[in-house]
């Protein structure tokens, strides 16, 4: 339960708004951070906290593309393929990325590390091809840079997994 795990953070979020229901967006981010995506349980938790029907909470999450409503890869890669980006080769870049990771459009890699999808404008047309990974921008990309990034992310994930294993053994 978010309420039990992060009482202070939730208190701080509520303090920012005159009305509890206004806190729905930061709470959705908190839930996404905690669970990896916004679980059906999270809608109920948040609804209860702010006194709103869970259906209405889901409706808000559904409207915004920043909220994940189903489990996705550890690295959530969103490539802009809108017109200006496409003119700078975003489509070819996207196809190459899919091949590199061996996934379908919108799919997740077998190891569960990467989800790759196309999105609408991320407001960085002049730096295309570009992508957003877990809300961080990576711009002026080509496949060489991309391979480095992927290797970096894989290594990072491996390192985290090792620490977890050690922690478990201990």
């Amino acid at each position, binding site marked *: 339960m978010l309420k039990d795990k992060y009482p202070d953070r939730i208190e701080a979020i509520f303090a920012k708004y005159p009305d509890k229901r206004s806190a729905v967006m930061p709470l959705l981010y908190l839930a996404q951070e905690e669970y990896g995506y916004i679980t*059906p349980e999270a*809608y109920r938790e948040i609804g209860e906290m702010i006194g709103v*029907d*869970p*259906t*209405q909470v*889901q*409706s808000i999450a*559904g*409207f915004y593309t920043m909220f994940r409503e189903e489990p996705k890869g550890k690295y959530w890669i969103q490539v802009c393929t809108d017109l200006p980006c496409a003119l700078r080769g975003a489509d070819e870049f996207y196809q190459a990325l899919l091949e590199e990771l061996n996934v379908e459009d919108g799919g997740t890699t077998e190891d569960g590390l990467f989800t790759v999808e196309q999105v609408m404008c991320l407001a960085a047309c002049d730096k295309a091809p570009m992508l957003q990974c877990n809300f961080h921008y990576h711009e002026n990309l080509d496949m060489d840079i991309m391979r480095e990034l992927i290797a970096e992310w894989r290594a990072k994930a491996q390192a985290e997994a090792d620490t977890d294993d050690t922690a478990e053994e201990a």
Partner: protein
Amino acid sequence: MTETVTLHIDGVSYEVPAGMNLVDAARVYAGVEIPVFCYHPKLEPVGMCRMCLVDIGFEMRDRESGELLLNEDGTPQIRWGRKLETACTTTVRAGMHVRTMTEPVQEARKDVLEFLLSSHPLDCPICDKGGECPLQSLTMRHGPATSRMVLEDKMHLAKHVPLGDLIYLDRERCIQCARCIRFQDEIVGDDVLAFHERGRRLQIVTISDPPFDTYFSGNTTDICPVGALTTADFRFGARPWELQDVPSICPHCPVGCNIVASTRLDRDAGGVKVIKRILPRQNEAVNEIWICDKGRFGHHHSLSPDRLAAPLIRKNGELVEASWDEAIQAAAEGLQAAGKNVGVIAGPMLSNEDLWGLRELAEGLGSKRLGLWPASLGDAKPLDEVGVASGTNFAALGKGDAVLVIATDLEEEAPIWYLRVKQAADRGAALIVANTRTTKLDHYAAQTLRFAVGGAADVLNGLTAAAIGQKWIAEDLIESRVSGFGDLQKALKNVSGGDEDAAEVLARAENLVIVAGNDGLDAEGHTALLQAAANFLIVTGHVGRAHNGLLPVWPGANTQGALDLGYESADTRRMLSRTPRALLVAGADIAADPAGAKALQKADFVVCMTLFPDATAEAADVVLPIQSTTERDGTFTNAERRVQRFYTAHGPLGESLSAWEAAALLGQHFGLPAPRYNPALVMKAIAAAVKPYADISFPALTAAEVQMPPIGEAKGFYGGTARPPIGGTGIQLPARSEGRGKLHVKPVDAPGAFEVGEDELLVVPVRRLYDRTPEFASSKLMHDRIPQPFVALNEADAARLGVASGDTVEVSADGAAVTVTAVVDDYAPQGVAFLPLRLSADPFPMIPVTGTVTRVAEALPVGD
């Protein structure tokens, strides 16, 4: 009169009320149909679907002189808008010109339809809505014949999504008008539906728990402008053009919702005429265009295979089938033997004609005992004087007005009043809810008052005392017309503790309606409550004019009619304690109450007229099958004293007859005339004998009041499948206070709250909308919605009794016992156990009694 303005539509001028919605004004005053999907006259406009785009312009004026600028030909110059505007979000103003048929407007409609259809499945041939679908009709009228959309780009979405047990959503058919979402949000106040995603993926969802299962869910299928929402009852059941709409009146509660029964000859039913669905029929004074799910889905009793199809007579101790001749002969012999020592007990689902027929029979037998079921109702006499005055309409209540709801859970007992009272509160009327426990209506109340079970009249006495003490009274009225004020004032002198805030709001309101039930009251308490309410209304001058008076929440659809025709609950009580030799019980399962069951045993001879072979029938010597509302013509009088007519929708089941006919057949054996030819003639006899009904006749009841806005008209383009007021909107009988005669107040001897010993429990019966009476439970699709039998206990009492939530317990009182599940929360006050009526088959007292609750089995572990 409201202020009017001149509105010009397509070059013609109309006088319309200022501030009216442009779509409504065009339709009502100009007969111009501006097509809409998302706009609905009962909902706030949102301008989402863009179907109502029109060209709007204003007359130009000289900035300095303010004079109208004219063209050379003398017509005013008009500045047209640069773009088309949505008519539904526009209110009419002076000097407004509207063009609805210009090329850009027609082009816009075509484009909007092309977009809406770009992902529509076009499965009209198998769609329930096909034939009465606004999307279909408006496409025929305004749409393009072809589409530029690429077939492969069509969105494919889920097609059979249950939003609850009763309503299915087809996501492909949905055009995202949000009418259902807005209905739940604005009208019902239960926002369990919402949009998810956006753009072309936008769709209706619910993840609420419980899901979409309000008592009003069916209404969304009416107002849905496409076939996206369908009911589990009707989906794939018939095509609209095969159906014949027969006007009827809902038999389930005292609201008297106007409905139609859509019927057709049905192969699956063996080629006979059956009801395929129930739809609301517009009556702005009664139910507007809404009905509850009990009314919509609870019609299956009319042709239930469980019904009694032929008369039964007792032979050698067994009930066996018999012909009508044999049964009437047997009944006549039995009644003959009892002489004048005969009594009638009648239920509130019988029509006025039935009740009159039974009364004529009783009088022919020399009996004056006309009992009304249930036996727990108080003396209703004050209502003749202070019942809501003619023309009363909840829709007219708003700021400056007040509603007091006392001793009733309106959502459970009269759902449409719940909706309408809630909306009056939304409009600014001060709502005060007084009950023994929390009810859903509390949420909308300006103030809630609590009283101990039985003490309802004390609340009103307190309010009256406060009003008199603070002089919030109608002095002129009291001086000129009120008798008994001195006595009342004296009696209330020492009454204190009345809530002054509430008293002030209610007493000083422009209009006041008191909605009074009998929740947790016995007859004495109910009598006291009605008189105390009458006192308050008279003393504060809230009688005799529209939108004022007392509205009783009766237990049945025609309780009011029975009272008007001389039936009394008090007579029933007398018959239960001193049972006549012969009893004629009609439309009342009196065996559900132990006192009734005992009377059935005591009587030497019992004739039972019933729809179903219930426990009362089992105890009878002769059982006569009678007809439900949809099998014949007749009238009900609702609790507002509106006499309303229902019509024959389908043939009678088996050999059943109307109760009035059966009574007349019996009467022939006692020298009474032969049965009348039809129920209209029975009503003629009522009109001749019962003064308030003097102007009532079947032809007079066919008159329909003008409905504004006319939602049911125009084949549903505008407001959905609610039907126009075919068959009449009924006639409201005036209250006596509308005349010039004296008004009577009198001191109320309030019995006060029930006393409960420290280790005792008061078992209080409560009415639930969904119960297991066969009239409702014959609708199989509602079975999952009917709660399992339960008793609600307070935490402290449960702890004392060693009972936990979910345990199986036996509730017993007065020698009766039921086995139910315990629900433990803070809903029930300490010392009180709320026991919903008619959830289990076992008889139980219908008034509060002290009793015990004992655990018989522990709760099953959850999750296994």
